[in-house]
């Protein structure tokens, strides 16, 4: 058990779990306090809210005035669908983070991807036979647009020396305004009833993601489609690129230390632009997968608010320790929370914003996950000598010595 705690991966997993639990408890405490403070809510409503936060995915609504829980294929299908965009933006943030960049610009790249995908999917005329071709075109368009937007941000950093965080923020808002501008005169606004502020669903033009049999697996969910499978495949590809290829190594080396990477013959500026372009492509792909589903509406007046997926992506990435495979699971976890939030506002007097609070708390905690990891390490301090003896024996046998515990000096510069 003690040796188990020494492993870095295990400690990361425990730190992640701790962050999640603390985040959920924080949400529950807020619900409880609000419930006690507000006469209209009371402890009964608060108890409902707390149960929904933890078990929202399994909620089956009311029966005889009581909340009932159990397997619910609709919820799980919806969860899988909503996980798609945030897994992708999570991958985007992860990839950038591994290469030394903090990508707050995923929102802007996501918007760029949305716009390109929607324009292609709705403007190119289709027949039932060619719809799949248009889908692929629109998807690639979204990917390219995201990549382009990411590359622009990266060039601001690489060539003009602007801090990437600020460059990302400014390009986010630029994208938000440009997107509004583009859609304003596009003639793509929905004309059904009084839905002027949304764009047609892509099904209007016959374009929609394949279900890949998932609608049979999760009957009842209107949304679930093959996007989640594509997202998982992309996550695996990103993992392979980052860990098994020279290209990925160059990107990471450049992220670890730009100057020494250049000394080693890696073109640092090219690496920065490429990794941000890749990150942008991932965010753009997420947007394309989400809006090409054919069942989602896009609110085109984006200049007022940036899409939340970009910021949730930060949570997905940090929670998964920026590991592409880990992102699949953290993405699904956060979309589980999302479903729970919907249930919360549907079934109780509370609203879905509490899940955003929980996500923010989790990100806040992950900022010092290193400290939590160290703290876990301290738990295993007892019996240190015994392990050391073992380690020397192992080293003598020609094996690698276990990683030494983190020291305080190591976490100096972030």
């Amino acid at each position, binding site marked *: 058990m003690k040796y188990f705690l020494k492993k870095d991966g295990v400690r990361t997993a425990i730190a992640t779990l701790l962050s999640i639990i603390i985040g959920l408890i924080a949400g529950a405490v807020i619900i409880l306090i609000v419930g006690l403070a507000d006469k209209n809510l009371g402890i009964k409503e608060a108890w409902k809210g707390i149960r929904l936060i933890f078990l929202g995915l399994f909620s089956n609504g009311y029966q005889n005035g009581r909340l009932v829980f159990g397997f619910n294929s609709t919820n799980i299908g919806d969860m899988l669908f909503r996980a798609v965009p945030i897994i992708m933006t999570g991958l985007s943030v992860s990839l950038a983070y591994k290469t030394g960049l903090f990508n707050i610009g995923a929102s802007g790249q996501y918007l760029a991807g949305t716009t390109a995908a929607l324009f292609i999917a709705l403007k190119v005329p289709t027949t039932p036979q060619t719809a799949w071709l248009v889908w692929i075109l629109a998807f690639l368009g979204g990917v390219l647009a995201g990549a382009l937007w990411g590359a622009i941000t990266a060039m601001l950093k690489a060539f003009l020396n602007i801090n990437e965080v600020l460059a990302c923020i400014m390009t986010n808002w630029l994208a938000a305004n440009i997107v509004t501008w583009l859609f304003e005169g596009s003639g793509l606004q929905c004309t059904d009833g009084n839905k002027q502020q949304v764009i047609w669903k892509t099904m209007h033009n016959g374009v929609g993601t394949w279900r890949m049999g998932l609608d049979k697996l999760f009957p009842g969910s209107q949304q679930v489609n093959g996007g989640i499978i594509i997202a998982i495949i992309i996550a695996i590809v990103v993992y392979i690129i980052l860990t098994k290829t020279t290209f990925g190594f160059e990107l990471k080396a450049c992220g670890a230390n730009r100057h020494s990477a250049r000394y080693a013959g890696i073109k640092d500026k090219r690496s920065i632009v490429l990794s941000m372009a890749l990150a942008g492509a991932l965010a753009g792909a997420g947007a394309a997968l989400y809006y090409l589903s054919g069942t989602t509406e896009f609110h085109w007046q984006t200049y007022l608010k940036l899409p939340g997926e970009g*910021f949730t992506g930060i949570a997905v990435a940090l929670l998964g320790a920026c590991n592409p495979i880990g992102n699949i699971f953290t993405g699904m976890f956060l979309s589980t929370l999302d479903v729970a939030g919907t249930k919360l506002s549907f079934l109780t007097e509370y609203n879905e914003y509490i899940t955003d609070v929980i996500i923010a708390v989790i990100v*806040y905690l992950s900022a010092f996950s290193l400290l939590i990891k160290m703290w876990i390490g301290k738990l295993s301090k007892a019996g240190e000598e015994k392990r050391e003896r073992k380690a020397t024996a192992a080293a003598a046998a020609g094996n690698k010595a276990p990683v030494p515990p983190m020291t*305080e000096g190591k976490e100096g510069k972030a």
Partner: protein
Amino acid sequence: MSYLIQQTLIYAVPLMIVALAGVFAERSGIINLALEGIMIFGAFIGVLFVHLCQKYGVFQLLPNFGNWGTMQLFELLGMLISALLGSVFALLLAFAAIHLKADQTITGTSLNMLAPALVLFFVRIIANQEELRLYKGDAAEWFMIKKGMLGLGNADNFLVNTFLNKVYIATFVCILVFVLCSILLYKTRFGLRLRSCGENPQAAASLGINVFKMRYSGVLISGALAGMGGFVYALTTSNCMSNGDVAGFGFLALAVMIFGNWKPLNIVLAALLFGLFKCLAAGYSSIDINGDGVKLLFELSKHPTWGKVLNPNLYRMLPYLISILVLTFTSKKSRAPKAEGIPYDKGMR
């Protein structure tokens, strides 16, 4: 013209006070990316305070209710409370960044996510909709100073029309606070010590300065200024309404701070420039530049060819475009505090 100046000031003043908030944090060595979040939180607290006071009739308890002077007192109280709570919110950043040596960029981002989520959660519960407004009336009716109130109803000169008519006292208080805080940071012993912690904390510590304390004060002052700025923004630009959003104002303030090279006077100029562009975006349709009754920008936006480019979408983009341009030119020679973003470690040299 006086409309243009007034509108510019309305946007420039929160910008410059929040940019100064950024300066206080960064000069002490902590990157405060959470300015946006603190503004959102401060705006909510201020609006909530006024809302509750109206609801429970606290205004009416005062001896001369309805007198405009009393209302100014309430406005100032709102500013004070949002500043205090802004500090409390910034404590989250201070604790993580100073005590736990967390990554300041991530902490800041998380607070930027936390503030709108918390605010919207409570707004929905309190108001049962997406935005919290005043309980009754609007900001102009309750708090705006008009020249008639000052006994200047008949005066019709430029100065009175610009600075004493249809203004909020918050604007002037912010300018005063800006000056006082700049003096605090640059002309006092405390300010010198605080700045030394942002340049070389180890050297500062060797001279007996408590780096932790200085960084805490830097971040807390930063939170207070940003919280107050948030409320002033909500009061003067969005009619005392809180909806968990300040439209990227906190980030613009960061750009203003960098453009202003972390120095108060330059920040004022930068804020005025950005304020002007923000004002173009918000009020392009009613700006009459030379006073001949022709609203040039509005006419242009309706023009068949020019209107394709010179329309509100472009004006809304301008502040961000300008920031990128400005950062391009200033980033090479900008002098950021040397130790910003690096957690203080006694053992490091």
